[in-house]
């Protein structure tokens, strides 16, 4: 695709802008910001990827992954500021899912050890892990706040902190992972996954694209479940002190 063709596709940005202006939806500013940001960010990534793919140097691959983790952490931490030490908990979670998934893929020679494979897959894994973290934190904080009486009740009867938030933890893990599992049930029936569509458009054999997409889907299942569980088990102890007393969450500063 040429830059000229891309310029023509800006029609797809003008349509919502015109509609928003006509119907007073107030979406113009955000639409423009989103458009400009996506152009700059993706072009920058494109140039960086070109550089990394050409050099094939491990240092650049690692640097890319570190940047991805940093950006994902920065984005997800806003949803969990009420939980002490949320930044390092997220970093640890992202590193774990990345090491686990790439360890299996590269260790068992499922994918080649090249930047072309490692970086896009890492992007999908860390990106998915970030979304899962946000879903989990949103739900967990809300569960902890609404069920604070039950938490204190269990503690007062001689329960441990883990027992006191067990239900809230399980509910939040389930709520955050269910969308990933449910979306896999209808995949291919309602919409073709973006990565597979991209490969097909780029001229890949559709069956090969499907096989690769399946690999990614399975990967994302692990990512989803490991992210929620790990973040949950890292987060809940910070809700209590050493005397097993429940510390009320601070009100979020929005």
């Amino acid at each position, binding site marked *: 695709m040429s830059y000229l063709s891309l310029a023509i596709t800006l029609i797809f940005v003008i349509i919502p802008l015109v509609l928003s202006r006509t119907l007073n939806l107030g979406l113009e500013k955000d639409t423009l910001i989103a458009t400009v940001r996506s152009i700059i960010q993706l072009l920058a990534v494109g140039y960086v990827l070109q550089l990394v793919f050409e050099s094939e140097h491990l240092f650049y691959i690692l640097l890319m992954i570190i940047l991805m983790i940093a950006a994902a952490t920065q984005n997800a931490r806003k949803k969990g500021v009420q939980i002490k030490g949320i930044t390092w908990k997220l970093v640890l979670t992202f590193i774990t899912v990345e090491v686990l998934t790439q360890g299996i893929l590269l260790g068992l020679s499922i994918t080649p050890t090249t930047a072309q494979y490692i970086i896009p897959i890492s992007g999908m894994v860390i990106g998915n892990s970030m979304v899962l973290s946000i879903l989990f934190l949103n739900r967990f904080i809300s569960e902890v706040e609404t069920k604070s*009486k*039950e938490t*204190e*009740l*269990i*503690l*007062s*009867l*001689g*329960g*441990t902190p883990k*027992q006191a938030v067990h*239900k809230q933890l399980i509910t939040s893990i389930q709520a955050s992972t269910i969308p990933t599992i449910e979306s896999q049930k209808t995949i291919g029936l309602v919409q073709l996954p973006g990565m597979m569509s991209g490969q097909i458009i780029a001229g890949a054999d559709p069956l090969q694209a499907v096989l690769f997409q399946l690999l990614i889907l399975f990967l994302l299942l692990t990512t989803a479940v490991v992210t929620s569980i790990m973040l949950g088990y890292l987060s809940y102890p910070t809700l209590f002190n050493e*005397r*097993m*007393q*429940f510390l009320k969450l601070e009100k979020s500063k929005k």
Partner: protein
Amino acid sequence: MASVNAAVQWNHVTFSVNGKTILQDINGTFLEGKITTLVGPSGAGKSTLFKLCNGLASADSGDILVAGKEIDSYAPVELRRMVGFAMQDATMVDGTVYENLAMPLTLQGKELTEDKANELLKLVGLPATISDQSTKDLSGGQRQKLSIARTLVNRPSILLLDEITSSLDRVSQQDVEALIVRINKQYGTTIVWITHNLQQARTIGDYTWVMINGQLVEAGESFLLDQPENDEVRLFVKGDNS
């Protein structure tokens, strides 16, 4: 009050939240095997006192001795099993009456036998037939009775009851009053009971603490409510309609 048979002794206990003083220099004793009632206007710090006693919160300064030992010398779980706490709104977890009743043992990985469950339900005046019923279907009075029964599963030597009759009708109130006396006599349990009903304090309590604005302003045998020495207490008693 002699300290030899103090179930809980408070020495200069102070507690604050976000810089706001909730309890100020509390000194006094809950006597072993007796019923002590805590009265006072809302916001006096009565429920907070219970939280400190059950270990759900810790004092900023001062000492709390439970059965003669510093409160922090107990492991939190051990302390909470020894000092039972029935909360104001009889909080239940989703599930059946049995599941809620058995919770203190379930938390220890143990099982509450059907016989024991029925015995406890009978003690608090609930029919064994409600065992499989959802707690959502219980009336206010039934919930309070279940809450007390659940606290008794741990066989606490001290029982803290936080306004457990405030939302009940007169008949249910009398049931719970009789139950408190029965538990005290049958098990020798030390009972501390927060109530807004001064008549209950006079008839049920051996001793009474009057708390106002985070301070223990008067304490003694329950007849103190008839002849308070403190002006604030006199005003408080006068304003009570019970």
